[in-house]
């Protein structure tokens, strides 16, 4: 049996108002029609469908929402947000829950590669204001031993072949182009929450 179903549940009724204040999204109007989950293309890889994440918020089950795989599997395709009959920005909620999970130190980028990708990507923007894909992929592969795990899984060869194929076609420039006004980029990063 899934151990999340047998673990004792901590109830935190302050969580829903905190989410609504922090995100500006009114989750409490959800009436569980499940239109979000029916249109979601990624439920096959989620531990909880989107409607259940909303239900967790309403029931004060913060940990269930914040520890879920769902929030990281969401691709922000915006189908749920578009179709919600009550106008809840569900994809926006998933973003807020990712951010709150990070604030609480819940996800570990060595096990959560989606987070590792996001962190490497932001680091690239911070460095030169733009993302140079070659540098970004190198940084990602070197983070948290991703390259070594890819060797063990036998998938690094796919990345190398792809890099070669793109380079041959003039689609993998070696020299990055950056923003001239780097101080402005630094200022925007300094203002981050």
């Amino acid at each position: 049996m899934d151990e999340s179903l047998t673990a004792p549940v901590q109830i935190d009724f302050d969580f829903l108002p905190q989410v609504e204040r922090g995100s500006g999204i009114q989750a409490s109007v959800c009436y569980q029609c499940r239109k979000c989950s029916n249109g979601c293309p990624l439920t096959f890889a989620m531990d909880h469908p989107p409607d259940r994440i909303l239900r967790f918020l309403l029931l004060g089950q913060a940990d269930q929402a914040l520890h879920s795989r769902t929030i990281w599997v969401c691709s922000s395709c915006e189908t749920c947000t578009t179709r919600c009959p009550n106008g809840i920005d569900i994809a926006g909620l998933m973003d807020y829950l990712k951010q709150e999970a990070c604030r609480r130190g819940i996800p570990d980028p060595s096990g959560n590669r989606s987070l590792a990708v996001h962190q490497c990507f932001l680091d690239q923007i911070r460095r030169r204001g733009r993302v140079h894909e070659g540098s970004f992929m190198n940084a990602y592969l070197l983070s948290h031993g991703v390259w070594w795990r890819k060797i063990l899984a036998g998938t690094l060869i796919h990345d190398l072949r792809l890099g070669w194929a793109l380079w041959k076609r003039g689609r993998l420039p070696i020299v990055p182009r950056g923003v001239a006004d780097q101080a402005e980029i630094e200022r925007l990063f300094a203002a981050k929450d």
Partner: protein
Amino acid sequence: MTEVSFYPGCSLDGTAKDYRDSIERVADLLDLQLQELEDWNCCGATAAHSLDERLAVNLAGRTLALAETAGKDLLVPCALCFNRLKTAAKKLQGDQEQLYETRFDGKIQIFDLLDYLSRPFMLKRVRDRRRVALSGLRPVCYYGCMVNRPPKITDSEQWENPTNMDRLLTELGAEVLDWPFKTDCCGASHAIARPDLVFTLVDKLYRRALAEGANCIVVSCQMCQANLDLYQDQINRQFQRDVYLPIFYFTELIELALGAVAPGRKLDRHLVDPTALLSAVGLA
């Protein structure tokens, strides 16, 4: 000559250089002058809006401010850049604008490239200059997520069943097929951390496109193009299929129809080489 500001975004400077080159050739063909926005920065993409909403708005906001200073409408080919810029524009013109460090007053408009090139005045230029009918090409149009959803952000009028690419390709003489997966997700940036998710989603798209009788898929987003094109071999191996579906940018088909693809210049900058298909239908 029509003049607009142009925001290529990071990937059109790199892995989607082929898209950028095609866009620039099409702009020349259609008397559209693209002025690359000076000192533009990354829109923040999925990483910024996933981890830091304020930074996401500020990064896109800086580019918007530059575009407003340049004073011309802004043309954006990347679907995600477009979505992030539109999101920032709404936030910076809303009642919470004091939360952010950048300013945008909405004096210029932000256009998705496909939307712009399929507007009546552009469609007329395409029609008047067409030299070749793309008959034999049976594409399905794959719009992806970000140029249409959510309509509150994108201002799209047809978000569940967009038709502007269908209309444009029909003008080019292609035998456009209808299908139900026009705006279904390809998995986007999951390709890096979770290729398993992308492969599952893309395999579903291939199977449906083939079931409709398509011999190619046409896109306007370089992330969709990458996910449908770069891994076709790997997906074939994983799901034991024999799919051959060239993935064109809609601008490449405009070039073909306007007779601008010189003999000998092969459209082979994708991984799935379209030459076999183009030869079979007499276009190469």
